[in-house]
């Protein structure tokens, strides 16, 4: 009896090792640096997490079907820059698109979603019909999107954003930032899709055994195209939010976010072997990552070292994930 309990604890530690480790770190920081656990800092964390969760939600579908999406970060940048260009103040000095009409902010959001969705659709076609491995196909798209972004902006930073853009992205309802609500809404929609729709079931089935899914009548190509298209739509939303939140930015907006998102998903239990992954896990993964960054900051760790810490966390998380898989055999 005693023995089996011990084994359970060991299993829990192995399966959630990274999370346990970070929980200890967070606990330590909250005790030693009281401002860490202030409401203000928590809200800050949530604001930082919002676009990242939204990107990670998009990427999670690709990962569950044994794919990946390396174009995520650059799509975030493209969407952010496009939104910035369309939502610059009319009297801004050096306005890049001086003759662009003043559009309703939600129309602008829909435009950037549509543009990214088209690019995501192309990703889906390349991966499902041309059968290019997702890693390579989306790597190509990453470069293409960055190029487009450079061409459009001329690498000039975009600032002087319209007030309504700032309100939508930086506003608060009482003490709680709007961004937090966007996070909740996006997560809720994805949770519904993953658990209560055919598309969700097909996605898990493809990740579990693509041939078996096909033999069972699942249109695997269509499902993958939907996944990559909707993922790109999420990146567009995230880019829009990031641009507004920062009050301006340039072509490097969102750079490297795809890797952070993939890492967060993996830490949250989305298996790199496909077929497994939950929305709660994705959120936990992002939260863990943001907590790590914040905790290191509060401990006064040099920001250069923080990259090293993040890198270690990613490798360890994936090593543990693979371990789970090996243990199953």
């Amino acid at each position, binding site marked *: 009896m005693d023995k089996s309990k011990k084994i359970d604890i060991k299993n829990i530690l192995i399966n959630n090792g990274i999370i346990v480790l970070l929980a200890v770190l967070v606990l330590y920081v909250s005790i030693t640096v009281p401002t860490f656990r202030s409401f203000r800092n928590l809200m800050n964390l949530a604001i930082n997490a919002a676009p990242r969760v939204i990107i990670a939600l998009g990427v999670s579908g690709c990962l569950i079907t044994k794919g990946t999406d390396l174009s995520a970060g650059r799509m975030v940048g493209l969407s952010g820059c496009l939104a910035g260009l369309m939502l610059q103040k009319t009297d801004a000095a050096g306005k890049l698109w001086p003759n662009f009409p003043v559009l309703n902010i939600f129309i602008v959001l829909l435009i950037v979603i549509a543009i990214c969705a088209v690019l995501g659709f192309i990703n889906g076609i390349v991966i499902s019909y041309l059968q290019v491995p997702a890693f390579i196909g989306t790597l190509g798209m990453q470069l293409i999107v960055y190029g487009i972004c450079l061409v459009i902006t001329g690498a000039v930073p975009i600032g002087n954003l319209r007030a309504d853009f700032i309100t939508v992205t930086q506003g608060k309802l009482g003490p709680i930032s709007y961004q937090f609500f966007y996070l909740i809404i996006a997560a809720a929609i994805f949770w519904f899709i993953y658990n209560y729709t055919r598309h969700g079931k097909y996605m898990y089935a493809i*990740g579990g*055994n693509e041939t078996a899914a096909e033999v069972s*009548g699942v249109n695997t190509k269509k499902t993958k195209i939907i996944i990559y298209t909707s993922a790109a739509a999420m990146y567009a939303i995230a880019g829009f939010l990031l641009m507004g939140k920062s009050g301006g930015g340039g072509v490097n907006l969102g750079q490297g976010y795809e890797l952070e998102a993939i890492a967060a998903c993996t830490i949250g239990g989305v298996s790199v072997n496909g*077929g497994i992954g939950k929305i709660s896990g994705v959120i936990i993964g992002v939260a863990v990552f943001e907590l790590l960054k914040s905790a290191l900051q509060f401990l006064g760790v040099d920001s250069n070292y923080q990259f090293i810490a993040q890198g270690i966390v990613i490798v360890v998380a994936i090593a543990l994930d693979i371990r789970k898989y090996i243990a199953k055999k």
Partner: protein
Amino acid sequence: MSEYRLEMRGVSKSFPGVKALDQVNLKVRPGTVHALMGENGAGKSTLMKCLFGIYHMDEGEIYVDGEKVEIGNPDEALHKGLAMVHQELQPVPARTIAENMYLGRYPTKKYGPLQVIDHKTMNSEAKKWLENVKMPFNPKGKLGDLSISQMQSVEIAKAVSQEARLIILDEPTSSLTDNEVEALFRIVRDLRDRGVSFVFISHKMAELRRISDDITIMRDGTYVGTWEMKDISDDEIVKQMVGRELTNIYPPLENKPGDILLEVNDFTSIHDKSFKNCSFKLRKGEILGFGGLVGAQRTELMEAIFGIRHISSGEVKLNGKTLDIKSPKDAINNGIGMITEDRRGTGILGCLSIADNVSIASLNQYLEAGIKLDKKKIEELVQENVKKLSIKTPSSKTLIQSLSGGNQQKVIISRWLANNPDVLIMDEPTRGIDVGAKYEIYQIMIQLAKQGKGIIMISSEMPELLGVSNRVMVMCNGKITGELSSEEATQENVMYYATQF
């Protein structure tokens, strides 16, 4: 010189629960081609694996040229002059022919402390050996550019270059065209005349007659006998292969075949070594068995009907209506379901729950407002099937990979019951399943047939094929070679057609 190049005496091998080989003998004379024949599962491959030390035999002795040998692994076998050309070749197609021939034993030369591959020697040696078997390929050419038969020739050349005195060919002609078979036989005859012995494992009677000098027949892991090919007739070979008592018990076939349900006309694969001009009819309420030996292309034919494989010609009619099937989805929408042969590879969704596995092919039926899945209804469906097929599982949320093979198969059957197809194709429905579960699956099949569904069963187990089918089609080498009513369907008849083309 000893009378036999290879002599295996009294070889026995048991696996947990099965006696795979029981006192089997094999005697191959020098400079002859020796046919090894037997049904699926007769123990031919196991015997060869014992010879090459891949399996450790429980009993028995091996003599090579009269000298007793102990063989622990394929490498040792090679040193004793034994080589094998596998049914599925395992070369490295992206590298050159010479590199493949010398894989693992590259000739090297030294530059001071550096040991490097001697490409010049390797290529010239390879060329020499290829010419030796009259296959003048460029040794620097990529192996992958050759056809399968040419790769086999390279494998044979490799074996000869390693001074093999006995070469085992495991179903070498299963994917070759007639011309390629001729080319292979030329090489075999040439080497035979130069004293090399061959063991030729094949299911094709006509071919064996043309090439073999002697024949050894095995049945159910036992040794039946050895004959000189000229002393034994085709009928006699078939009789020796199947001469067993049918003792298994099957549920009574209470279903009554009715009108024509499915018509398949002139199905021909896009690959010229696969099925050709296959036509058959399936009736409502009928269980139609498909017999044949491994490589008869039964699975390929059925997968083509189901839209997994492509055809160059042919049509399918269901209830008189011609169907246009391009994918499994089309087949399913038209009322055809298929349980594939490779349960693990193309059947189960391993890391998903039983509920997901049962419902995946019929989710359209459980939509609320066109989008939300009704989980309650799905749960009811799963529970109903768990009860009906007596699937042993703690809950519907259990992962399918934790169930036994028989229960996994029942889950897959449930997947199709939920979809309610008119025609259900079952490819080796009881493979790897224990006896009790088998009986239950037969009952389910008969029950479905009684409801008027048409069932096609591919089975490589003769007793099952004869015990559960209302009618039996037999295939050989991509063609339908025979149709037998349940009265005509005897082991001998099935085996006769399974070796004719």
